[in-house]
């Protein structure tokens, strides 16, 4: 197992230098810069202010005093907690039964259902929020119009008001429930069927088995999902900016962003970012503690397929439940966007008489930033995905194979950014890269750094578990035959990991395209991306152009993902790891 240590690299072909140690050290240094630089600026700013007399930066706790005493800042903090807790609970209430239905029952079309959940993950939350404005704004919303039409209610009667705290919680839950669903469904997939068989053999009925065996086994995954949902809700910027501001309240992220309005208060913004960072770290510790106990759920070792519970007549309400749940983040919003794209008035149903290509024409032939934003988004998506995948590949190799001393530090550094909310990272990077020695603000580089940093943890975790699945024997064989570590990585391990690598690439690409909260802090006019352009258009209420851009963004995403999966030599045609 540990044959492959650099120290033993003494052989007949000594002219071949093993670059692995310097390469790995370089990566470690790179990670340090990526993460430590913005965070240290953040901490430094939050603890200092510019003395007006001397123009020097002096130590102060004034920012934190303001943060915890000024109601303008305390209220958003409380609001954020309420929103995050409620949407996390809502996510679990929906995702847990749905995950169970898909993984553990004879529900039909589970593949389609899983694919549609993925579609709701690919949808940027801010785009979903705008689509929900078109659907459920109290007066002009399509659903409220339908309600008034059906009931003959008064002009200003409404069923839903999306500009409200419950509205915001609802929309956030729509786009965070995939996280919980995936965790729960995967955990259920992994629970060995024989534990349940044992329960049935001992005389327990279907429901008793579910209650006494299956649910306890999946509970850690559910709790982990709840935490992830909480974190996602807490650090979202787009949805609250779109739904909370019209209703007259701030969340922490929108508040931090508003602190950058003229005259900017970077010190206070830095201080306001730190509670988010602190909470995230705490929660992730909690998640680790919960997941740390996960071990017992796979005690069964290799075992048969999980037993599927027969739903019988219950399949009807179960299917209805799933369809309704998928209507909310996928079908209804996409319908609203399609309608808005080709209707002269976003909130009127398009008919053959009113069908118009005006928005399409405006977006692609008149709006001068469209091309630039699409180009930037594409370049950044592809570059972040490529660099991020390579980075994650090397680091997960080093940690999975314990290739260098201190690999644990490397692993920790690669996971650390998960604790940095996008907007916080945005503030940190803004402070770090607008001044010497690294003046990167205004270039695509700073966005690239932001995206890679944000996506690294997930990419690293995906690839690390993939590495664990490939036995080191194969690499050892290659190294015994004289290949360097890098060569055996390239020629042996990488091909075996093909599928995982592709999945990681696509994951980073998709996440980069839909990222808004770091980009909103870092863009300049020349480095605008589609998500920021959509947000700009939202502020001036240009719904038609938003719909066209949002749909193009999704088309771009899906095209790239499909193209990558069909590249010759990749994907289904190649070797598969087992």
């Amino acid at each position, binding site marked *: 197992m540990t044959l492959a240590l650099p120290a033993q690299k003494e052989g007949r072909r000594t002219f071949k230098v093993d670059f692995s140690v310097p390469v790995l050290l370089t990566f470690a240094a790179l990670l340090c810069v990526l993460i430590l630089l913005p965070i240290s600026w953040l901490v430094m700013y939050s603890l200092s202010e510019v003395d007006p007399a001397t123009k020097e930066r002096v130590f102060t706790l004034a920012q934190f005093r303001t943060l915890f005493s000024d109601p303008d800042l305390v209220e958003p903090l409380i609001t954020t907690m309420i929103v995050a807790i409620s949407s996390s609970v809502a996510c679990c209430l929906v995702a847990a039964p749905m995950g169970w239905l898909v993984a553990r029952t004879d529900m039909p079309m589970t593949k389609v259902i899983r694919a549609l959940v993925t579609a709701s993950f690919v949808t940027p939350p801010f785009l979903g929020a705008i689509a929900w404005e078109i659907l459920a704004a109290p007066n002009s919303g399509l659903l409220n119009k339908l309600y008034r039409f059906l009931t003959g209610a008064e002009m200003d009667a409404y069923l839903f008001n999306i*500009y409200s705290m419950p509205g915001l919680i609802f929309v956030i839950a729509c786009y965070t429930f995939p996280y919980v669903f995936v965790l729960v469904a995967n955990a259920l997939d992994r629970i060995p069927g024989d534990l349940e068989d044992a329960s049935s053999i001992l005389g327990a009925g279907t429901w008793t088995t579910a209650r006494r065996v299956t649910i306890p086994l999946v509970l850690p995954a559910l709790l982990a999902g709840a935490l992830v949902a909480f974190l996602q809700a807490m650090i979202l910027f787009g949805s609250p900016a779109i739904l909370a501001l019209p209703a007259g309240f701030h969340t922490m992220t929108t508040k931090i962003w508003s602190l950058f309005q003229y*005259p900017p208060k970077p010190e206070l913004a830095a201080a306001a970012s730190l509670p988010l960072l602190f909470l995230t770290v705490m929660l992730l510790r909690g998640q680790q503690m919960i997941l740390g106990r996960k071990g017992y759920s796979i005690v069964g070792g290799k075992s048969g397929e999980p037993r599927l519970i027969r739903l019988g007549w219950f399949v009807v309400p179960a299917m209805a439940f799933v369809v309704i749940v998928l209507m909310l983040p996928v079908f209804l919003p996409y319908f609203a966007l399609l309608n808005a794209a080709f209707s002269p008035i976003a909130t009127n149903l398009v008919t053959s008489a009113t069908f118009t290509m005006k928005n399409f024409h405006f977006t692609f032939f008149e709006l001068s930033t469209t091309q630039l934003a699409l180009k930037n988004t594409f370049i950044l998506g592809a570059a972040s995905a490529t660099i991020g995948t390579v980075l994650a590949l090397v680091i997960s190799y080093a940690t999975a194979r314990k290739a260098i001393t201190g690999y644990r530090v490397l692993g920790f550094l690669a996971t650390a950014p998960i604790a940095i909310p996008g907007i916080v990272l945005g503030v940190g990077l803004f402070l770090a890269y607008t001044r010497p020695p690294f003046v990167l603000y205004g270039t695509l580089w700073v966005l690239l750094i932001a995206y890679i940093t944000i996506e690294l943890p997930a990419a690293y975790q995906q690839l690390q578990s993939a590495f664990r699945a490939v036995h080191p024997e194969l690499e050892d064989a290659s190294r015994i035959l004289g290949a360097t570590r890098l060569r055996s990585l390239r020629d042996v391990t990488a091909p075996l990991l093909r599928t995982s690598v592709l999945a990681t690439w696509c994951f980073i690409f998709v996440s980069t395209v839909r990222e808004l909260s770091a980009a909103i802090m870092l863009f300049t006019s020349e480095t605008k991306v589609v998500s920021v352009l959509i947000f*700009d*258009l939202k502020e001036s209420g*240009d719904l038609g152009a938003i719909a066209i851009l949002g749909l193009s963004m999704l088309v771009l995403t899906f095209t790239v993902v499909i193209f990558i999966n069909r590249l010759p030599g990749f994907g289904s045609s190649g070797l598969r790891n087992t």
Partner: protein
Amino acid sequence: MTEKKFARRDVLKGTTALAAAGMSGALFAQPARAQAPAAAAITPELIEAAKKEGKVVFYTAMDLTLAQRLGREFEQRFPGISARVERSGAERVFTRIAQEFSSKIYAVDLANTSDLAHVIHWKRDGLLAPYLPEEVVKHYPKQYYDPEGFQIVTRVLVSPLGYNTNLVKAEEAPKSFADLLDPKWAGKMVKAHPAYSGTIMNSTYQTARDLGWEYFEKLAKQRIMQVQSATDTPKKIALGERAIMVDGAGYLIIQYKEKGDPVDIIYPEEGTPVATSPSVVFKSAPNPNAGRLFQNWMHSREGQQIIVDFARQYSPHAQTVEKPGVRKLADIKLMKEDAEAIEKGAEEIKKRYSALFKV
């Protein structure tokens, strides 16, 4: 707050006396004053130099469709120069430029803001390039441009009330700002934000000055829907999302009404807030010739007629032909614009505003 200082560089809305001073400045160079730049025509040399640069970058607060229309017309008029328009609220444009300049990023050639106070800032910081197109000197009233050529008013904006005619009958529509405090309008109004929009910065300052901050205190209790842009409030009432628009771009109401949307404009009895919207060329412009060409063309008869015909705004150009359907500026009771007071008080205004409206 309204204290006036007649420092010459600060006074942008010239009185006759000041305009005369500007004139004499142009005629007899006096050591104490910066000399007014020579009136510039669109010469073949300028066009040639602009074409070499190939593009112009225009940061603007005007409604996106107008901004893009101007950009496209410019591209057609001067083939070979592409116009990139960067639209946001005036206050955002101002923040963006400050942020970019402080990081030594010079991407903008010229900007149009709807908050005259920004020009005071920029001019004081020495960021602007003096440039006076010929037509401006010939055909613009003196109060609409800086005699030293640092700014030219591109359009005059008003921020009236507006309503959706399907939701509110004309005879029941509010007539004044005071009417908006009637409980029957609670939850039915939409309002734009002074930290985003220059028009709204002006209207907030003028309304608070004339009616007192108590007015906004009461208005804030009416469950207002808060959007950002002055160009969004007309869109929201056109959709029927809210019945009444408290402030915003009056010209869009006129545009939408002419297009057949169920909206109409109300000029409030207390007076209608007004904002002159100047354009400037930056000293640091990466495409200085294209920037000047755009500035020149936008303020020519041709560019200005688009402001009148397409955008339905007020042009300062004396030769533009009016298109019926817009009430004359002289026939509207206007509040008084005061750029200096806003320049000094903007931070305070935003702070008080967000304390009342919570965002």
